[in-house]
């Protein structure tokens, strides 16, 4: 069985520095980590590998630093990692990204059985790449998967979508995206990590290696054009309270207790209650 897992390196912090002049994110200023949902997709693949035997390859599109994430994936148990790293791939929207990822599948593992991704990455959360890729590759697919079982070529999955628990069935080859709450990832073994950085099988590929149409990748292949980018204005002119926690709460109650009581429909005056 051949499994392809797509992983992404995301910033390890929630607030990123950005350059107000260019409107560009200073990605280089942030430490990277493997996207939590993608890590769970990898764990799901490794569990299939443990149970049924499988070759697991991991693919990421991103800057050179994303190689670390692939080495981490190899340390966890993936067989090989491929980094799609090329300035021409930069600036891709989800449409161009899914085209590129589909080309990578064609070039690296055309006889795959299963493709796994995180359902949405922590840094953009569009949740679009998985479903796009399913269409690019013409596969049966389900997003937000939390459980899966494989019997022969038949895959049965459970997922929750808008408050409905669904059990779905499909035949391989197929594509799944998994949520960040299923498939708790195994720890990365230190020895594995050392090996993965020493000799692990991680390869770097360009757009040309994928025989990708330059018109369909990166910024050139993206439908959307950003005409403006900004930090949303903090609109309110609020009151600042500072001091010890106890003093802060006292001041909050003294100045805004009535307002809070009104909003809570409760008497917060502290006077005797009936």
């Amino acid at each position: 069985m051949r499994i392809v897992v797509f992983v992404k390196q995301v910033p390890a912090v929630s607030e990123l520095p950005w350059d107000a002049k260019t409107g560009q994110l200073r990605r280089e200023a942030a430490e990277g980590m493997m996207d939590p949902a993608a890590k769970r997709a990898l764990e799901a693949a490794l569990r299939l590998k443990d149970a049924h035997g499988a070759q697991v390859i991991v693919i990421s599109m991103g800057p050179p630093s994303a190689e670390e994430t692939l080495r981490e994936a190899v340390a966890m148990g993936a067989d090989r990692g491929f980094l799609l790293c090329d300035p021409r791939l930069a600036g891709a929207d989800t449409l161009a990204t899914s085209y590129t990822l589909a080309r990578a599948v064609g070039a690296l593992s055309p006889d795959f059985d299963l493709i796994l991704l995180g359902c949405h990455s922590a840094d953009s959360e569009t949740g679009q790449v998985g479903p796009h890729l399913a269409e690019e590759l013409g596969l049966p697919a389900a997003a937000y998967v939390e459980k899966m079982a494989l019997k022969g070529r038949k895959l049965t999955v459970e997922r929750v979508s808008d408050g409905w628990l669904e059990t779905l069935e499909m035949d391989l080859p197929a594509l799944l995206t998994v949520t960040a709450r299923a498939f708790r990832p195994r720890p990365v073994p230190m020895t594995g990590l050392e090996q993965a950085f020493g000799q692990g099988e991680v390869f770097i590929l360009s757009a040309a290696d994928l025989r990708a149409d330059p018109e369909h990748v990166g910024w050139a292949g993206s439908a959307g054009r950003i005409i403006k980018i900004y930090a949303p204005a903090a609109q309110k002119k609020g009151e600042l309270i500072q001091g010890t926690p106890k003093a802060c709460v006292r001041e909050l109650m003294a100045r805004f207790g009535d307002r809070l009581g009104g909003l809570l429909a409760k008497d917060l005056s502290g006077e005797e209650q009936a």
Partner: protein
Amino acid sequence: MNQERAIWVVGDYRNYFQNRVTLQLLAKAGELAAKMDGTVCAVVMGHGVEEWVGEYQAHGAQRIYVMDHPLLSEYLPGLFARALESLARQRRPEIILIGATSFGKELAARAASRLGTGLTADCVDLYLDQEGRFVQVAPAYGGNLLAEIVFPRHRPQMATVRPGAFAEMPHDASARAEIIRLDPPAGLSGDGVRLVSCRRLGYQGEDLENAKVVICGGRGLGSRKKFKNLHELARLLGGEVGATRPVVHADWAEEERLVGQAGKHIKPRLLFSLGVSGAIQHTAGIADPEFTIAVNKNPLAVMMQKADVAIKADAHQVALALIRELKARGSS
């Protein structure tokens, strides 16, 4: 032939009474259509969907495409995407809007790929600029940024829109739409996914979505144990506990409590935001509270800037002090 400029809103009616986003989109589409001399169209796919046709008519749809057929009786994105694609290829809408529910996002992404067009996720606003371009405002780059995006070439222009971004129009029982009934495309089938079973789950955070008081906790609280105090605070205040992405990732709180773009969309009157920095993925899930109290050691945190009252202190300590104070005031 003069090309009609139609704005389509795809009906996502599965959780009709909780999920009003289709109605909100019909209202916004009406505003946009008035400015571009367009037509507001609803698209209703499924089996036994007459009820929703009536609802969309009463909420601003000028035309409704109805594909009501047993082949569409399973609410599956792979299936609906094919039906939507065929309809869009025939009728060529200018814009397709879909609510950013889990179903809507999956459906939209699949339909956009099939149509070879662009799709903007989780828009928080839509407008027509002075040049008449359709501008989609959406969170970007995972930071604290909003991007305004246009599609210069790709048509239709597709967007998913966050629930709560717009207000629905009042129900007008006298409104009449042109209703066009269509068969599904010949040989319609899904993507090979079979629905074995589905059932409505119990608590999935509806209480959080509808709560008048929400206590949101972020990583600034310090630990899982400290986060747990928020439940006590919520009990005293008669509210619900929400959480940020880092808190959910650290397993301090269940995924159902995630407030934000990819989580629950809340609309409380009163919001306590404790130890929350205010990344846009989080704030995008909060519709204008009447009163916000933020607690953070960093007075420059976005959430502190957005608050009516910003308390510069340790969030956990303030939570404890607040619990004591509320108990002392008899709010037990």
